[in-house]
């Protein structure tokens, strides 16, 4: 008979009670609440709840702004997967070799991560300014006058201009993940491959990238989640009027708090939650599988 010394079976729960209660009250309960609100009429949660069944969800299907938001979220998602991950990997590999000024450059690259979205948004608003902005100034200076656009004013460029800012901030994040990952790639393995005559490309493809797979999964998951919850940059850089750049999070905010339509806003939140949840479940599933395989 093994008996642990002085630790009653409920001990872990006693220690966990406070965080669990806080988690339940501040995370789980609001999620359930907004799920329920999604089935209520407009602002009726304020004045006495009226249930409308799936009406808010039915309205979503016929709402062009909702589909615009979905389309824009897909653009965010695609660009967040395609750009920061390879770029972050490249930068990380660059910094993985020791050379002069390494730390300085690394810090400079990481700097955007330390800024708040409000600061980033304000800086980029100036960069994008049609007349005085650095971007258009540069384009004009190198004779590409016709490429100097009103980036945040024209419907066609708004989303692209905003995603670019998000990507700019995401690259250093991914870089840090890969830098940590690269520490786990044994130098002997790479050296052995070099002796065997593997080219740089072969070493990258067959040794480094496979060994970085865990870091890649984390980077992808974070990028997906960050792209789905894009809001701050849009809110700041469009003076809260996203118009053509609307995404689910911004449309949810405007519907609920701008138009006092809490029912509809909750329905949008539920859709966004389900989409995010699907990605998270895939990720958790993978992590659990890896754990049990080991």
């Amino acid at each position, binding site marked *: 008979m093994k008996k642990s010394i002085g630790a009653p079976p409920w001990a872990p729960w006693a220690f966990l009670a406070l965080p669990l209660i806080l988690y339940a009250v501040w995370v789980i309960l609001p999620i359930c609440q907004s799920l329920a609100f999604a089935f209520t009429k407009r602002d009726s949660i304020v004045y006495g709840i009226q249930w409308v069944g799936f009406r808010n969800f039915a309205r979503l299907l016929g709402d062009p702004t909702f589909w615009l938001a979905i389309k824009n979220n897909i653009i965010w998602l695609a660009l967040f997967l395609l750009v920061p991950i390879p770029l972050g990997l490249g930068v990380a590999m660059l910094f993985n070799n020791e050379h002069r000024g390494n730390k300085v450059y690394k810090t400079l690259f990481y700097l955007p991560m330390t800024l708040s979205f409000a600061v980033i948004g304000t800086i980029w608003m100036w960069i994008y300014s*049609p007349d005085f902005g650095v971007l258009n100034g540069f384009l004009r200076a190198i004779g590409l006058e016709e490429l100097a656009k009103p980036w945040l004013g*024209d419907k066609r460029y708004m989303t692209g201009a905003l995603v670019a800012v998000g990507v700019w901030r995401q690259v250093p994040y991914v870089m840090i993940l890969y830098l940590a990952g690269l520490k786990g790639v044994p130098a002997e393995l790479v050296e052995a491959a070099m002796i065997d005559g593997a080219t740089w490309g072969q070493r990258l493809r067959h040794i480094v990238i496979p060994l970085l797979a865990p870091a890649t999964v984390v980077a992808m998951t974070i990028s997906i989640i960050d792209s789905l919850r894009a809001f701050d940059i849009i809110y700041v850089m469009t003076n809260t*009027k996203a*118009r053509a750049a609307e995404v689910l999070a911004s449309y949810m905010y405007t519907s609920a708090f701008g138009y006092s339509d809490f029912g509809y806003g909750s329905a949008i939140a539920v859709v966004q939650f389900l989409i995010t949840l699907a990605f998270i479940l895939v990720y958790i599933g993978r992590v659990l599988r890896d754990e049990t395989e080991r």
Partner: protein
Amino acid sequence: MRKASLSLLALFGIAASIGAQPLVVQSYMSDEAPKNAFAALVAEFQKQNPAIKVTVNTVAHEQFKTQLVNYLTAKDAPDVLTWFAGFRMQQYAMKGLLEPLPESTFPGGSFVKEFPAAFKPAASYNSKIYFMPQSWYWWAVYYNKDVFAQYKLSVPKTWDEFLSVCETLKQNGVAPVSIGAKDTWTAGGWFDYMNVAVNGGTAHQKLTGGTVSYTDPSVLKTFGYIADLAKKGYILENAASYSWQEAVTPLVEGTAGMYLMGQFIMDSVPADKKASIDFFSFPKVGRPDYGVDTPTDGFMIPAKAKNKAAAKKFLAFIATKKAQDMMNVTLGRLSANMTGAIPNAEAERGLAMVKGAAFAAQFYDRDAPEEMAAKGMNAIVDILQAPDSYKDILTALDKERVRIYADLK
């Protein structure tokens, strides 16, 4: 002796508890100038009513707007709230969240003794008054006098004259019309003035009331005029990239000629340039009469307020000429009180323009439900960028109208 001192103490106690009669005012006046002016006003009220203890909670303007429903429905609702006249207020009266103000609340015995009768509809719902007006301002076409003088232009009175002014400015490389459409509400002024000029006040009221379609021929005509300005290239290039203040700069510098804006535009004009900027009444479009936008700011009492008697006393104080002057002369605004002092010559002309108007609106986003106005203003910005597809844009907008007004019921 001892008994006497005890009863004296009791008396003190009662006096102290009366003295502590609290009055909570929730205010959105978070900018420095109005905040200080309002604090002075409250201090004056406090001096006159030592039995009431006023607490002012100031909340940032935008945050206040999103929190208002919470204030109104909270168990311990504030006693007085700052707010806007028109549908923006009436929607809450409709839900029974506001305390009606009987005519006896007004120092002169009735609303019309203090304020113009024209202000009453926007302050009432279902023939009960819910709103105490404090100040208002006008919208007009602001223009750069130096630019007009340089190209020998005179103030346009009709739409044709307006278009020819635009053409001359454009020919000379000056953007005729500035607008900071990144803040979409700047387009709301164009909606109000253009539609009232084309269709008159009554028709405009029906449109913001939701009973007229945005695809109605009369409304299409209004938006046709706006689309025409964009098509002719009379709107400042990249307008949707600028906030309303950023679009003031070209007007002040003379690279733009005109800007349809509220009187508060002058706050953004540098002191040494103020003399160059003036305003004129929106040009007439085939109708003999004209309308104006006169957004009115003031106060209301939540139905759940704890201390309604003190709240009404406070509002009665706010209504007086003295109280309105204290606030509005300082800020250069017009008092809602008819006897209020006119702060300057500019205000005198603004007042004359308003007095001559056949119709006064609040503003698109105060007369129509917020969602309708927000989507309508988005639509106008879209039209400015794609004037050829204005009919499609309005068809989409009208679908929203049908749903939004049906949802209100």
